[in-house]
């Protein structure tokens, strides 16, 4: 067994109206190729960048939410490399003096305890365009007939979009922790309104650094060889690729071989990582301060203004759930991992009017289990939070018992029908009429004189058997408390 050491770099597209350094619209999704471009983001001769103030504000919001230090003085830098979708031949990024540094984010560790994941830095940079490499010319075909075969097509709509890069310390010890970090981070960024969280559309892109080390190495503060994993297009890909890499590197180390320092790509179809680039070909980006932009100076007052404008963040919300709603810390944490869940929960609590803890039990218990087995998320539920409140009230009123309630919830998730309609249509209402139940019980006792005799002779454990028979007879609709009282009464009386 090896200790797993994971760090993560996340690129999140900020939600500004215009690009990072020009006035082009940032709303490029599904726009025709190269329709959101101007001389600046096309890198015409003589153009100059102008910093998008909104992007700076959103970065600072994220930095504050991640408990970072906000640099009063930060510097943009040029990261030099050639690629056709990088119009200037360099990316304007931040290198030595990032906007935000030295923060942390809290997750639930593998041991169930709260765990801090260190944020090394969070900085602002610009996105690249997209390159589409078209397959090579087929044998015997002419370029004129297939003008784009073998070509690299460039779409620069995305070029120059503001990107927030968040780099963690190597604080995560498993794929699960990495996954939790990502989910929590996404919730924070969404809550702040700085990122859509849409990983499939590339609004969030992440890279994982992973290394294994022995217990002795860990004790000595040493690290194993670091492998970078890219091309992770979903949260699941992050978790799966980490699991795969741990397995692969474990096999390498167990075989007495050394892990190579490489960049791997996750192959979603083959469900494995493949080598993208060796260390020997790693690039020298020749960073230097961007001379076209003066250093960014942020006043303390401005930063404090941004801090004051921050919305309630997941940790604060969880604390409020414990304090004001009487939830357990665990339930509160579970309910605030995703903002949509917390919002849904609060809406249900408001509609319910009773103890929030009751709602929390239903959400974190039955509802989460159903969502997990259906692989759905709370936003896709076909019913409203108020309808969960209706269901809980049906249980409270004794109209249905708790077990029936769970079955009703299952059908609500499947069909979206209101709970009362399900109860009505399927005759699930609890039998609470004493006279009716007494009839059923008396018939049961009459039909089973032997069991009655045994019970009365002292084998009181038969009570459960009698109750089960009544529930069976009533197809589970009988009010269990009432049944218990009546059966005991008749047997003892």
């Amino acid at each position, binding site marked *: 067994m090896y200790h797993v050491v994971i760090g993560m770099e996340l690129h999140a597209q900020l939600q500004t109206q215009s690009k990072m350094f020009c006035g082009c619209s940032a709303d490029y999704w599904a726009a025709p190729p190269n329709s959101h471009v101007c001389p600046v983001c*096309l*890198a015409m*001769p*003589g*153009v100059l960048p*102008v910093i998008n103030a909104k992007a700076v504000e959103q970065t600072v919001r994220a930095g504050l939410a991640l408990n970072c230090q906000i640099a009063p003085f930060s510097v943009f830098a040029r990261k030099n490399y050639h690629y056709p979708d990088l119009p200037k031949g360099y990316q304007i990024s931040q290198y030595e003096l990032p906007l935000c540094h030295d923060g942390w984010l809290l997750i639930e560790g593998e041991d169930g305890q709260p765990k801090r994941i260190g944020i090394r830095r969070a900085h602002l940079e610009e996105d690249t365009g997209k390159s589409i490499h078209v397959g090579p010319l087929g044998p015997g075909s002419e370029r004129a007939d297939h003008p784009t075969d073998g070509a690299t097509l460039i779409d620069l709509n995305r070029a120059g979009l503001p990107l927030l890069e968040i780099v963690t310390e190597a604080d995560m010890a498993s794929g699960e922790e990495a996954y939790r970090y990502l989910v929590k981070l996404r919730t924070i960024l969404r809550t702040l309104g700085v990122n859509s969280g849409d990983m499939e559309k590339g609004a969030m892109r992440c890279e994982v650094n992973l290394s294994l080390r022995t217990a002795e190495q860990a004790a000595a503060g040493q690290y194993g060889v670091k492998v970078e994993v890219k091309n992770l297009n979903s949260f699941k890909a992050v978790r799966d690729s980490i699991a795969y890499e741990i397995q692969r590197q474990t096999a390498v180390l167990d075989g007495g071989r050394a892990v190579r320092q490489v960049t791997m790509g996750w192959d979603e179809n083959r469900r494995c990582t493949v080598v993208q680039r060796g260390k020997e070909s790693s690039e020298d980006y020749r960073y*230097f301060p961007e*001379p076209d932009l003066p250093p960014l100076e942020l006043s303390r007052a401005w930063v404090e203004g941004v801090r004051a404008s921050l919305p309630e963040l997941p940790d604060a919300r969880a604390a409020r759930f414990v304090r004001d709603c009487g939830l357990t810390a665990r339930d509160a944490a579970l309910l605030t991992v995703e903002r949509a869940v917390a919002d849904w929960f609060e809406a249900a609590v408001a509609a319910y009017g009773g103890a929030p803890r009751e709602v929390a039990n239903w959400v974190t218990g039955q509802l989460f289990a159903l969502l997990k087995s259906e692989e759905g998320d709370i936003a896709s539920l076909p019913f409203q939070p108020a309808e969960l409140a209706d269901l809980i009230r049906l249980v409270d009123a004794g109209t249905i018992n708790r077990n029936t309630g769970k079955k009703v919830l299952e059908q609500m998730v499947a069909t979206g029908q209101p709970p009362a309609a399900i109860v009505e249509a399927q005759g699930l209402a609890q039998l609470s009429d004493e006279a009716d139940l007494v009839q059923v019980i008396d018939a049961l006792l009459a039909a089973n004189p032997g069991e009655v005799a045994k019970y009365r002779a002292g084998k009181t454990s038969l009570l459960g058997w009698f109750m089960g028979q009544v529930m069976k007879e009533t197809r589970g609709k009988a009010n269990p408390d009432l049944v218990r009282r009546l059966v005991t009464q008749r047997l003892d009386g």
Partner: protein
Amino acid sequence: MSDELFRLTIHQAAGLLRRREITSVELTQAVLERIYAVDNAVRAYLSLMPEAALERAAAADCALAAADDPASLPALLGIPLAIKDVILVEGAPTTCGSKMLEDFVSPFEATVIGKLRAAGAVLLGKTNTDEFAMGSSTENSAFVATRNPWDLSRVPGGSSGGSAAAVAADECLAALGSDTGGSVRQPAALCGVVGIKPTYGRVSRYGLTAFASSLDQIGCLTKDVTDAALLLHAIAGHDPLDSTSMDAPIPDYAAALGLARSETGQSYEARSETGQSFGALGLARSETGQSYETSVALAGLRPSQPLHGLRVGVPREYFIDGMQPEVEQAVRAAIDALVSLGAELREISLPHTQYALPVYYLIAPAEASANLARYDGVRYGLRHPDAQTMWEGFKLSRGAGFGPEVKRRIMLGAYALSAGYYDAYYLKAQQVRTLLKRDFDLAFQQVDVIAAPVSPTTAFRVGEKADDPMSMYLADVFTLSLNLAGNCGLSVPCGFDLQGLPIGLQLIGPAFGEAAILRAAYAYEQATDWRARRPVVGERWPVNGKRRTVNGKR
């Protein structure tokens, strides 16, 4: 008179236009004729926009005719100007003197061009430059080597050699250039015209093709100091598109010259007394073979002391062994002249001057290596037809598009920035740059203006230094400190060498001290008559067909 209109300065022409003695169309036509007559010899222009120029001239004439108060119109209304071909003009080619951009037509334009258009200026065409402004002779142009109008076997200096030659040969009334290490001042000195490099941030760089972003600044090349003041005023100012441009007040530079407005009441006509002199200038050169002896000129000094109280510093590091003796004599004589005009002289020291050249040749190429990375043939510019793959496209296009000096600097810059060398080269250079800036800051606590040579020599022969980059780099040894420090400087004619080649006096000011150096230069210019001598450009030179005629935005 119209056949000699091309000899006018901006302020002379502005006066005549306002008095309706000439029209802008006549003026523009005269300048175009002049270009057709002499540019085959001088080769200052890479492209011309005659139709668009005449249309704008006609529009200026309408505005002049319609104005109730012509004096209130912008100084540049109807004035034909030339633009260095590193500055983008919408609809016009911008080649930067490079094969890489031979067919590039700009879809947008520089902020300074927008300002010139708003002022009603007439744009004649684009002038030659060393490729991407990298050079000191204009020989690095991929298209043609511009000649010095004073001696066509010599270079005009560079990299704004096309603009300087065009002004000297009266192929425009004035021109814009760019100055990264002396590229306005040095050709101005070598061509005997006025050239000013404003303070970094004084003029917007938006639309100026970047060579070295922290050093580049657009400047003016003009026939006299008054014109420099007028043109600078028109292009100066903060630009929201250039984050390095400064939001500092723009003085009325012409008024700051000290007499223009107060003397005549009508602006831009400060020299109306001498307004007729342009009719009799053809003889200058033959007549005054000895006039590098500045004492002759000083005989014409005014009795008044317009520079009374001005503290002029003379840096000992700027008079070095190996300078051409006439240059040193002329500059020292000019400094004496400043004293006669009332200035106080102080010897000063700029102790880190010796490091300016190496510092410059680390920082400028480093920035250039990144600035020129965009020329990859993907979106515009040269794309090599033989490229089969993406990477081959990069290599072949850049290999064919850039000339040897550009490649040399890209490699030098990439090396200075590379891992393991960054601290020793780029970072160290930036630290020394801070010391150079401090030299000037300390000096300007003691003096108002610094006087120095512009170039260690007068114009050298075409080809003389072409194969020796180091000696070419030394041509900028007195000018590039300013670009590193960010302050302003100008070159004003201060004499001629034994071969009749012009010499420039450099006046250096603190950041945003343009008014002070213009005022000193103006007083000096008024007290001397160097301006009276003009080059005689023959018309017997073979046709060179590289210039293109195009029509830019109207």
